[in-house]
């Protein structure tokens, strides 16, 4: 099933509604090939984040399929979807979503536990990512001791740990200065170049225009 012709992630006939008979996503067909950065754009409330969470298997579509490497995965059991998320998906949430009681390093390596990765390996990778995003001096700090921009970079480190095949980012540059935003975007682009697919929900037209693919909702 794994071949260049099969998109890494795809949505087929996807439908979702918060209110009955008023679907926010209706019969959506979209493909997210490897080595591609896709921008999800649209006005607020058009379902960008919702689609991101459906693709990330955190939310179940009313109908239709999410296909990972050609296989429907949204019909898997809860534990099956959780394992897939842990092993192949990376998330950058709108507000970083770090655990305020744990150190930056602990926050980054937390996902190693969920995917069964050795903590030692995860720490080595985390230090490399921290250095890459210029926040290595914050490893032992708590999230309350760092800035919003730094928190977003830490969230990116967590998402990229262990090199996930799919990275889903919800407004990843929303809290960042232009230089840091550029750093984040280029990091996501570099990650896509390794064979992954990156999907970014954004309001930023500049960011959207720099992406390989554009899905407007």
């Amino acid at each position, binding site marked *: 099933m794994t071949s260049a012709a099969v998109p890494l992630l795809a949505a087929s006939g996807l439908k979702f509604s918060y209110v009955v008979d008023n679907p926010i996503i209706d019969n959506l067909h979209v493909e997210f090939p490897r080595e591609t950065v896709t921008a999800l754009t649209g006005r607020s409330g058009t379902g960008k984040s919702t689609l991101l969470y459906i693709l990330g298997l*955190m939310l179940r579509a009313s109908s239709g399929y999410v296909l990972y490497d050609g296989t429907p995965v949204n019909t898997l059991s809860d534990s099956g979807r959780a394992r*897939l998320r842990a092993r192949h998906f990376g998330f950058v949430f709108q507000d970083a*979503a770090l*655990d305020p009681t744990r150190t930056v390093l602990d926050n980054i390596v937390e996902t190693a536990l*969920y995917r069964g990765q050795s903590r030692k390996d995860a720490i080595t990778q985390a230090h490399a990512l921290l250095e890459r995003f210029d926040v290595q001096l914050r490893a032992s700090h708590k999230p309350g001791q760092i800035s919003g921009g730094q928190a977003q970079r830490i969230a990116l480190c967590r998402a990229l740990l262990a090199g996930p095949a799919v990275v889903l980012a919800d407004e990843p540059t929303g809290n960042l200065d232009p230089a840091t935003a550029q750093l984040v975007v280029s990091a996501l682009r570099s990650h896509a170049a390794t064979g992954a697919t990156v999907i970014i929900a954004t309001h930023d037209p500049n960011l959207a225009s720099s992406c390989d693919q554009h899905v407007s909702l």
Partner: protein
Amino acid sequence: MLREAYASARSQVVASLLTVAVVAGMCVAVLLTSARTAAAQQAVIAHIDALDTRSIVVRADASAGISTEIIDQLQTVRGIAAITALGPPTDAHNAGIPDGTAVPIRPLYGAVTGLTDPHSSVGPGAPARPPTAIASPLAALNLGLVDGQGGLLTEDGEGVAVTVGLRVPAYLAFLEPLVVRPVTVDWTGDTLDAPPVTVLVVLATSPAEVAVVTRLLNGLLAGADQSKIHLETSAQLAAVRAVVNGELNTYGRGTILGILATSAALTSINLLALVTMRRRDFGRRRALGATRMLIVTLLLTQVGILAVTGVAAGITISVITLNATGNITPPFTFIAAVSITAIIAALLAALPPALIAARRDPLHELRVP
């Protein structure tokens, strides 16, 4: 998992300390309560036992037909701790004091089981060979035997050497003042020649055995003249003892269960509050790929670590307190049972909050309003 659970416990200081304190309090309350209950129970039972709950006493005329044969028959019976058989008494007084107080001398048939066995019941000062008669200290006082030995003169005019040193157990105290003449029965099975028994005291191994041994003894005495036999048992006292013991056990168990249930409820409430406060944390974990089972395992491991810490603290405090106050320290098996029960109670109490945490909707917790 252990590291993550430990780290989670450390990051939630207040909730963790509260859980440790509740579990430690549970152990302290159970151990101190049970120790005091056990001490009170022991005291009450000891008082009842002092009233002689295990003995069966048969008094008979010499002509009733009870012979030393019954000793051999009883020695094969299970549930009997001691048998004492005495023959008809003969009054005697100190040969050196013609007007002295008379005390009955009774033949003690042996070898019999029990503390009055002449080879086991004589004091350390007694000669290796049994003397003609042995007197208890009370009998010696009545007889005026000041040197620990002397001579007695029976009402039949017979002279009997006597030494002092008979230790009379509590269940034979009713026979005091007691002077016995150990007699080795050389009986070959001829009932007519077997010496008569006028007092037979059978001590059951436990109060619960009294009724069974009494029935058996009645069976053995069936051939004797029932009009010349009087049998006294402590069956009623044994029944009272069983009821009191049972009531105290029930009270102790009820108290312990109450403490465990209260502590488990407190642990559960504490963890429910923790889960509610940290719902976003569990939602984030779920979003990042933690399965529900992993969340449950993580919380239970966390509570397990805290419960073990609480148990260790609670037992240490309890043992120190019990030693300091001079109370009975419960046996190791009881402490181990309390420890395991406390940990299980804490884990069971943590299960509902853990299941609630595992069902947190990641999207609901993570989306910014």
